[in-house]
């Protein structure tokens, strides 16, 4: 299936935060006053007011200190755990790929936050009626914040001066990613997001291990919703058999107990 992807090449990122700021501006997200962060990543985490941040890290490569940056946001999974977790359909996957949040349907249970393998959805804790906040891939069915739906690139991609972020069909992005990796020994031989959690629409390549940014690397390659599905698919047969069994048991034992009423005999354990 065709789906829109962003390839993030961390070797190109200079930490300019243009993407981060563009996201705030485009989506009318309010600014906050973040806590001090030793890495000078402000805000240091995405939150109810921030869909994306550019993490700053000083790490090591070939024994040298190096600075690297990683823009993080919702990865827009091919088979999103958050969508499968939402019991009110407030999170939905669009055919183009973006995982979109419909705030009017949201109950605020935060199961999506727990379900997402990447810890993406955040909550507006400061609000009386808080909503989930996460990157919408600049896709907005209501139109106001829509870009991708209008055939434009996401705001962050459009703003990046260094081509760190490029936007296109997932297949092409994957091809490009592997071409870069195979063409330059500096890269880690891994496209983050190709297989993680069954694959994501945001793909990362890097010349330092992804762990440097705290990317989860122990993520299963099986789509998370499948785990749930393997359990939930038992629900209908279970209802049928267990329900039937209970009914049978009810009438059978009732008769038996009626018969044996005076004996005060019971079924041994």
């Amino acid at each position, binding site marked *: 299936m065709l789906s829109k992807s962003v390839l993030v090449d961390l*070797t*190109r*990122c*200079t*930490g*300019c*935060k*243009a993407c*981060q*700021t563009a996201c*705030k*501006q485009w989506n009318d997200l*309010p*600014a*906050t*006053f*973040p806590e*001090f*962060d*030793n*890495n*000078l990543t*402000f*805000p240091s985490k995405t939150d109810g007011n921030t869909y994306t941040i550019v993490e700053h890290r*000083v790490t090591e490569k070939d024994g*040298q*200190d*190096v*600075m*690297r*940056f990683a823009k993080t946001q919702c990865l827009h999974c091919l088979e999103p755990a958050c969508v499968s977790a939402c019991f009110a359909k407030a999170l939905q996957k669009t055919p183009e790929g973006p995982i979109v949040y419909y705030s009017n349907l949201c109950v605020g249970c935060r199961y999506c936050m727990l379900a997402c393998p990447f810890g993406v959805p955040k909550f507006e804790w400061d609000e009386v009626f808080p909503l989930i906040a996460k990157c919408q891939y600049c896709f907005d069915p209501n139109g106001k914040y829509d870009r991708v739906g209008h055939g434009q690139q996401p705001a962050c991609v459009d703003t990046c*001066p*260094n*081509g760190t972020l490029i936007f296109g069909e997932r297949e092409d992005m994957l091809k490009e990613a592997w071409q870069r990796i195979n063409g330059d020994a500096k890269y880690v031989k891994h496209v983050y997001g190709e297989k993680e959690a069954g694959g994501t629409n945001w793909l990362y390549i890097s010349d330092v291990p992804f762990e440097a940014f705290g990317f989860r690397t122990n993520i299963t390659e099986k789509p998370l919703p499948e785990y749930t599905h393997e359990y939930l698919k038992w629900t209908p047969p279970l209802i049928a058999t267990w329900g039937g069994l209970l009914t049978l048991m009810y009438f059978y034992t009732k008769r038996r107990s009626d018969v044996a009423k005076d004996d005060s005999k019971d079924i041994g354990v």
Partner: protein
Amino acid sequence: MTNHFIDYQHTDVFLMIGSNSAENHPQSMRWIGKAKRNRGAKMIVADPRLTKSTVYADIFARHRPGTDIPFLLGIMKYAIENNLYHKEYVADFTNASFLVNSEFGFTEGLFSGAQDKDGKVKYDKATWQYQKDGETVKKDPTLQHPNCVFQLLKKHVSRYDIKTVSSITGVPEDVYRKVCETYAATGAPEKSGNIIYAMGITQHTTGTQNVRAIAMLQLLLGNIGKPGGGVNAQRGESNVQGSTDLAMLSHLLPGYLGVPNATKHKNLQDYIEIETPAAGYWTNKPNFMVSLLKAFYGEYATNENDFGFDWLPKVDGKNRTHMGIFQEMMEGNVKGFFAWGQNPAVGGPGANYERKAMEKLDWLVTVDLFETETAAFWHAPGVKPEDVQTECFLLPAAFSYEKQGTVTNSGRWIQWRYQAVNPPGEAKSDLWIADELFKAVKKEYQNGGKFPEPIVNMLWDYDKPGHEEPDIEKIAVEINGYEVGKEDTALASFGQLKDDGSTVCGMWIYTGYMAIDKDMNMPNCKRRSLEDSGLGSFLKYSFSWPLNRRIIYNRCAADMDGNPWDPQRALFKWDGNKWISNDVPDFSKTKTPQESGAFPFIMLPEGHGRLFASGPVDGPFPEHYEPMESPAQNIISKQQNAPCANVFKGDWAKVAKLGDSNYPIVATTHRSIEHYQSGAVTRNCPTLAEIGPYMYVSISEGLAQEKGIQPGDDVWVETVRAKIKCKASVLPVVKPVMINGKKVEIVGMPWCFGYQGIATGAIANDLVPAVGDGNTSIQESKAFLVNITKA
């Protein structure tokens, strides 16, 4: 910049020294990235801090602030001794072969002609001159004569061997050797090396000589004037290039014409005779000067009255630079002050002193977007408003998007920008404010006054009927230049300017920017055509001064016979009869390559790039001197500090003694992407305040350990002059370096914080000493001494 940003894609090796483009010129990184990907370009970053720009670096040389001259001279030595310099270029296009006065000498860190004056060296430059046969300079094309520039240079740099450079700068020898190898390799004719620099180079008592060292290295390796090369000063404020062109500096009139001196230039005749060189393009100076006077005084400027020369303000030899002015202010000699689009209460060296000085003012007018720290100096923390007698005005100004006009970028591209939104509230464009102000002043003078002529005779007719704003296009055409009587037709070239009063031109180097492009039917600076030769010159996109030339000194892009050094990147090629060109030539297209090649540096009287220059006050060659505040003895000579440095008076200029154990740590200041300059604008923008909310000091892990400092702790940063409190960021961004075998810690601070706005913080400039470069008086804000303690 001799080149321009897009041209970076043609570079083979970048040496980014004292610039952090990733934070301060982010768009330039895209072209560096392109060169790396498409050409396999290498990048060297020389910086005391591990900067964001090092993301693209192949070699990162962590050096001690204030040691760029040894770093650069060492590469020259390496290139010369290993025969890696560009021999043809050096011989043909530079003054390497010129013979210098045989009396010229250099001992104990000082050049010949040194005279002691009030504890400061003043040079008699007599021995720094070329040997001449009548009017012609004596040369030795073999470069063997002991007194030719090349041999003098070779001797001078020979002291900067790898080991010495390493122990001064703290760059490990193996890393430095790699730097030398990598960069000197651009001496190959077909290779282009690009030196990108900015404030890490200039803000030193040796700032001018630092820049000189860059220019010399580029000449030596044949890197000036060709694609992918250049001496690329990445400039500051979006339009600082424009404002420098338009005479922001105290010693210059528009177009880099010197301000007349009250004693030296009694009249226009004097000025022209003394200031016009015998050769080179500056021989046209009288045309430029007279046209400028016509622009100032219009019909009142006549041949009879020296075109109003007497009405020009004159300099008196005193220091009228930033620090000079504030010193006068502190002494009570400055009564009123316009802080027009500047915020010295945060950005000035010894900012606490500058704020104190402002208390001596009778009046202060701030023209700004926000109530900056400068506008609010009278209610700064610790200041009692009732004790300040200064009458303060704040005129709200429109921001760049709220008005139209041109901006000149680092690459000298003059681009017209249109207004996007209306200014809020009562805010007005600067032009409107200036216009109204001048008209009001003029009106006052019309009733008489002391010396009213410069005011009442000023050509000032920018009213546009039916419009509130002055006629900005009219002003633009006046700057561009026109023929008297043809006010509507902007001249195409400064070659058309005359010294007889028949032309008017506010700034000669811009001539042509408002001229109409016949094909596109619009002024050149409004063009936006993406048509290109493939070299990225984009000759029909905006207008680049001078004369739409994208790379200056571009005669050097081809050899004596007109063959490009690298056919793949041919800016020009002589096909035997004519030039094939991809840029506007910096030479006469009608002359043969040999003729134009004989004088490729057309702005210089000798027409050759100067490996040896008598211009600077502090020596014809750069020489390493320690910063005014330094933890290290100068090991290269007995002269500890820059001999001609400008040291101001008072507490703000106090410096720690060499080896003062109370201040053992070297500090530098820097910018960050989140904030612009003093932060006046960005700290008032919620989204930007959010991404850069804290003032901090970067300290090494070792220093943190030694001082018991945890990441995020509040710390005191203290100098012999002042102390400030901020957060500590503990990362290997900074690390100690080994200087003469001794470990020296380095710390870095952004200087964008103040007490106004959404994000506030301590002012780094409270710590910076009032000492400046001998040539320019730029402050030494990149290297001074501090101590750090846990707060």
